[in-house]
């Protein structure tokens, strides 16, 4: 059989690796900064660009899309070429993919601190960047499937299955969650409203975890773990079962982010049950990864790469057990909106995604530079700093989350809340916020050590030319073997199968929610927002208030006592986008309307501590100085009518006049209460929105 000679594109892998670690260090640094902001509010620095509400999306986007994204792109480009015995389809597309992705990250790093945000978690980037993401992702997909088309090894290894699932599903998730109507270059409004927007968002949000932070990394595990451990994968049949069950079941689980919300009960139960059924498929990956080391556990003592990988897989196992447990409604009642969730995600992020990326990078680096790792000792130090950092982080957040969760729910023997004052439940957490920042800082220091180690290693490079390889041309005789074995030789059929598997759950959950009216019972007293309230809502989104405040009172007595009537699905029908939030660093705001006088809000935004002693919220003094921008309001109201909000022609034409009149009334009230007339300042628009929240059902 004649062998064909070819080379692998290694330069592109090196590029992605460097992008990953550099962005990773930045993203983690922002993480430590925002952790400190929760411990000490002064660190918000009194400037709009650096408040927690704007930096938190920057942190999540940077570590997910820049650190983890670039890391798995590196791993995919390295392993795909070698598993398919082919150079990437097009070097040009590889470069476009790389530079396009980095441009998107730069755009994110600029726009998020400016407050340009859609408010949808992990999808905050505005519409022009969303389009760029879709384009770059399609470039990646063409390059990836093109490589499959020209492959020499006929069968697709399990790592490739996971990459296929990633490429297909991320595209679907991103496109459908990002559908929005733009108003100008920097603002858009989700086409979905309220409950429907929430469901689509968490269908996306949870499956970003699944198909951006799990499936690509499982693929990497299947390639790099046997490479690093020099052992065989434990079970091929297990990989088939756990692959298909994982991608099929994962898609259904999004609603577990919305337990006890206004989402219909049937959807909540679906989310919980599919999450529980996901334990075994997730653990299938863990078993196949860990048992690769069978008979070679002693290697763990010497090799830092294996340490990273084995601990990563262990964290994967723990997170994928904890996740389903937190999806059980009675536990979720306690954990939701608290730091317990933060602990959980960081177990997955720092432990699984971070450590597996580090392991793969340490493994690839000497091979890409044809040299030895500069210092194994430093790699070991990185490992231990990282591990201790994760443990401190997670334990601090467990204690903080469970403490606060219990305090929120606590009633005394006379049936009164023990801690009716929300801030009482916050001040207790401050020591743990410092501890969390310490854990994060240790992890960050570890990452810096790795960058140093990488620089030194790269400097000792002996040869940067592409590695060459030989393989026979792809066989063309009929495929033989069992069904799945044949499927592995038919990428098109395989991809169709993946697409069907991931679409079923999404369609069966989302379509009924959009199509069947009884899922969102309408409430006749609920009316669209006034133009000024819409402006205020956009300010709320710009400042990222939803990062710390929920707008969803759950039907739990501790909440209805604390906040008021629980939230109903019909109250959110004009909410484009929904702003339910996922974390209560501050109290819920859905029933804040009418609870305090306008002047209270003014003082509170200027300096929260003048009215809430012990508050950790930043000052928003610029809202008292900046003039309200009315220039877009007519377009905004008009865009809302396109989304089905019932404004009429007059509403659109008089939007600005209405807004100004309402602002004048608020300004007058402030003046009468002894403050300055702030009618034309942004604070009046925000007050208008806050005073409207949750009030429609009171009539």
């Amino acid at each position, binding site marked *: 059989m004649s062998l064909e000679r070819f080379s692998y594109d290694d330069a592109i892998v090196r590029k992605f690796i460097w992008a990953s670690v550099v962005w990773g260090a930045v993203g983690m640094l922002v993480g430590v900064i925002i952790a400190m902001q929760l411990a000490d509010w002064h660190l918000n620095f009194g400037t709009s660009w650096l408040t927690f509400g704007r930096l938190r999306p920057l942190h999540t986007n940077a570590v997910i899309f820049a650190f983890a994204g670039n890391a798995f792109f590196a791993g995919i480009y390295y392993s795909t070429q070698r*598993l398919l015995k082919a150079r990437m389809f097009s070097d040009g597309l590889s470069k476009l993919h790389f530079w396009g992705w980095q441009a998107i990250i730069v755009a994110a790093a600029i726009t998020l601190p400016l407050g340009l945000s859609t408010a949808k978690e992990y999808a905050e980037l505005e519409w022009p960047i969303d389009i760029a993401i879709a384009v770059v992702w399609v470039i990646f997909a063409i390059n990836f499937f093109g490589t499959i088309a020209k492959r020499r090894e006929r069968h697709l290894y399990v790592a490739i299955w996971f990459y296929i699932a990633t490429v297909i599903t991320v595209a679907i998730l991103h496109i459908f969650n990002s559908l929005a109507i733009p108003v100008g270059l920097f603002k858009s409004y989700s086409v979905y409203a309220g409950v429907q927007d929430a469901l689509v968002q968490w269908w996306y949000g949870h499956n970003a975890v699944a198909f951006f932070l799990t499936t690509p990394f499982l693929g990497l595990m299947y390639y790099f773990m046997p490479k690093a451990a020099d052992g*065989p994968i434990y079970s*091929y049949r297990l990989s088939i079962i756990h692959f298909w069950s994982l991608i099929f079941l994962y898609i259904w689980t999004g609603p577990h982010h919305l337990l006890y919300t206004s989402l219909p009960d049937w959807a909540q139960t679906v989310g919980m049950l599919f999450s*529980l059924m996901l334990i075994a498929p997730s653990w299938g990956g863990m078993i196949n990864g860990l048992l690769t080391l069978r008979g070679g556990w002693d290697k763990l003592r010497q090799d830092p790469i294996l340490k990273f990988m084995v601990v990563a897989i262990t964290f994967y196992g723990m997170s994928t057990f904890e996740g389903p447990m937190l999806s059980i409604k009675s536990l979720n009642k306690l954990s939701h909106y608290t730091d317990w969730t933060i602990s959980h995600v960081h177990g997955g992020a720092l432990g699984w995604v971070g450590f597996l990326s580090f392991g793969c990078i340490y493994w690839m680096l000497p091979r890409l530079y044809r040299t030895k790792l500069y210092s194994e000792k430093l790699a070991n130090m990185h490992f231990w700093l990282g591990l201790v950092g994760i443990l401190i982080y997670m334990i601090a957040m467990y204690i903080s989350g469970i403490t606060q969760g219990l305090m929120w729910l606590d009633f005394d023997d006379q049936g009164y809340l023990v801690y009716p004052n929300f801030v009482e439940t916050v001040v207790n957490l401050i020591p743990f916020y410092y501890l969390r920042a310490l854990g994060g800082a240790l992890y960050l220091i570890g990452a810096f050590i790795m960058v140093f180690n990488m620089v030194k290693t790269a400097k000792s490079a002996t040869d940067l030319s592409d590695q060459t390889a030989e393989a026979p041309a792809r066989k063309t005789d009929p495929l033989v073997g069992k069904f799945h074995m044949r499927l592995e030789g038919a990428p098109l059929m395989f991809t169709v199968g993946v697409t069907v598997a991931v679409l079923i759950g999404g369609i069966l959950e989302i379509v009924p929610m959009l199509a069947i009216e009884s899922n969102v019972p309408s409430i006749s007293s609920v009316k669209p927002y006034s133009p000024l309230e819409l402006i205020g809502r956009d300010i709320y989104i710009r400042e990222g208030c939803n990062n710390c405040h929920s707008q969803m009172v759950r*039907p739990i007595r501790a909440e209805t006592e604390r906040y008021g009537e629980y939230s109903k699905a019909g109250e959110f029908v004009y909410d484009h986008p929904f702003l339910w939030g996922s974390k209560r660093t501050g109290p819920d705001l859905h029933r804040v309307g009418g609870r305090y006088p306008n002047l209270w809000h003014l003082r509170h935004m200027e300096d929260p501590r003048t009215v809430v002693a012990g508050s950790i919220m930043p000052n928003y003094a610029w809202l008292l100085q900046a003039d309200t921008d009315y220039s877009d309001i007519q377009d905004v109201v008009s865009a809302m009518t396109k989304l089905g909000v019932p404004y009429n022609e007059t509403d659109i034409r008089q939007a600005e006049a209405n807004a100004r009149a309402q602002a004048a009334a608020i300004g007058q009230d402030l003046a009468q209460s002894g403050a300055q007339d702030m009618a034309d300042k942004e604070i009046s628009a925000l007050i208008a929105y806050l005073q409207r929240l949750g009030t429609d059902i009171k009539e």
Partner: protein
Amino acid sequence: MSEDRKVDVPHDYDGIEELDNDLPRWWLGIFWVTTLFAVFYWPYYHWINPQKLPEAAWKAENAAREAERAAAPAETTESLDLDARYAAGGWEETGKTVFDTYCVPCHAADGGGGIGPNLTDDYYIHGGTLANIHQVISDGVVEKGMMSWKPVLKPDDLDAVAFFIRSLRGTTPASGIAPQGELVDESGQFVTQE
């Protein structure tokens, strides 16, 4: 390792070998148990026990807690009138604690007012009798931004803070805001000015 079954089709996955061991039984067990749980949980929760659904459970929880409140030691509020208990004293410490915790942000530490009205002068918006003060605290004045404190404060605490606020009248705050409302007489009744 000799018992491991291997995948017997010739591939070259960059040198990676795959065994073909059976699915671990305990793993299959988890899969079956969680799947069966799902199958049975749905009818159990949605059809057989709809009283466990969030809204119904909330109503039941509410009823249980209200019963607890009702069962708490009988309140003295009804039996003794507010004026007598105000005069009798004994509420000072509790009243100040409650005031400091909840009222200070809007009415200032010395009652001089700020976001909310001055509590030290002789002018009242809703009347200055103990009953008036008690009712404003209890039910709130929603349109003016005074929230209802009944869900937060226990009856004794609510009484105590009403007494404390009554005791602020006539004191001199460091920087009180201008009077709001109408003049009241010593008992707190509005002085009708024709």
